[in-house]
């Protein structure tokens, strides 16, 4: 039995005390596994997220975030659409905000590092990301902790998924007065464009590039309200 086999056996065992299992989950994020090993481990990561994502315990939240990152990072691209379940509200009115942030960030990272050949569709995942973007793209909410980062990643995720929701999202962004958010979103879009264009041939990323270009151009478009940039006002 290899060192990893032993580790996975302990992680997947129902006998292991919760605190220990939680520590193993966090350790697993930094551990290299073979594809076969991670296929064994992934259901345990998923079950851990489902079971503890609503926990108020800070250590549980840390382990859930870690499990989400490892789970999404190791999902084969054709299984990424299944990550939509992580954004379902379950018995609550919405998923915990920390879960939304980790999933949205990881979807963007995954779709930046991996570009499918041909048509790639993930309608359910796009629907969940759009629900988030549609809710948080509000000047009142964006400046609240984590809300801006979640909205930013949800928009970038929709752009990379080439979702039908993207156009509506873009329209909502143009009506925002939060120029700081638009500027940072445009910066991230340019960074992702540079990253994917250095890794993938142009025809394969044409759709993503077209969407990201529209985001990158947003700071040049005057806001609908014509409100001056609050950034010019010193504290």
């Amino acid at each position: 039995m290899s060192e990893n086999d032993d580790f996975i056996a302990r992680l997947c065992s129902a006998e292991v005390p919760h605190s220990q299992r939680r520590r193993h989950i966090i350790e697993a994020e930094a551990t290299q596994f073979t594809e076969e090993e991670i296929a064994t481990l992934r259901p345990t990561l998923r079950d851990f997220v489902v079971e503890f994502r609503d926990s108020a315990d800070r250590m549980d939240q840390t382990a859930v975030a870690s499990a989400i990152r490892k789970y999404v990072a190791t999902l084969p691209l054709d299984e990424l659409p299944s990550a939509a379940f992580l954004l379902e509200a379950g018995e609550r009115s919405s998923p915990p905000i920390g879960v939304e942030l980790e999933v949205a960030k990881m979807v963007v990272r995954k779709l930046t590092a991996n570009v499918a050949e041909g048509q790639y569709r993930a309608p359910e995942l796009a629907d969940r990301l759009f629900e988030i973007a549609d809710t948080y793209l509000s000047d009142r909410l964006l400046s609240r902790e984590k809300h801006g980062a979640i909205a930013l990643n949800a928009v970038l995720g929709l752009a990379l998924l080439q979702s039908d929701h993207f156009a509506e999202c873009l329209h909502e962004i143009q009506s925002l007065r939060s120029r700081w958010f638009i500027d940072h979103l445009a910066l991230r879009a340019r960074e992702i464009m540079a990253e994917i264009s250095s890794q993938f041939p142009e025809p394969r990323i044409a759709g993503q590039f077209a969407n990201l270009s529209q985001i990158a151009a947003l700071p040049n478009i005057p806001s609908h309200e014509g409100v001056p940039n609050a950034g010019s006002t010193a504290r």
Partner: protein
Amino acid sequence: MPAARLGSSPVDVERFDILGIDAAGGANFIAHVGLSAKPISQFNVGAAAELIHMQPPLTRGPSPIAPETWATASLTIDEEHRIDLFIDE
């Protein structure tokens, strides 16, 4: 960017001002810095401050430290929002 070694007189620390601690045994080498998580009035050496730590990345966390150095920059509200966004991202 105004910067100072704390000690002679208290300073008013703004949110996202930089606070640093010295390396052990070396007064001219700063071992660790972070951004102040909140404004603190009349702050001086020996007091603890809650930081957004430069790990990297910048990480929010309840690990207060007692800094010896301080630096400040006049940030706009938008710049503060962008820093918040960058940290959460």
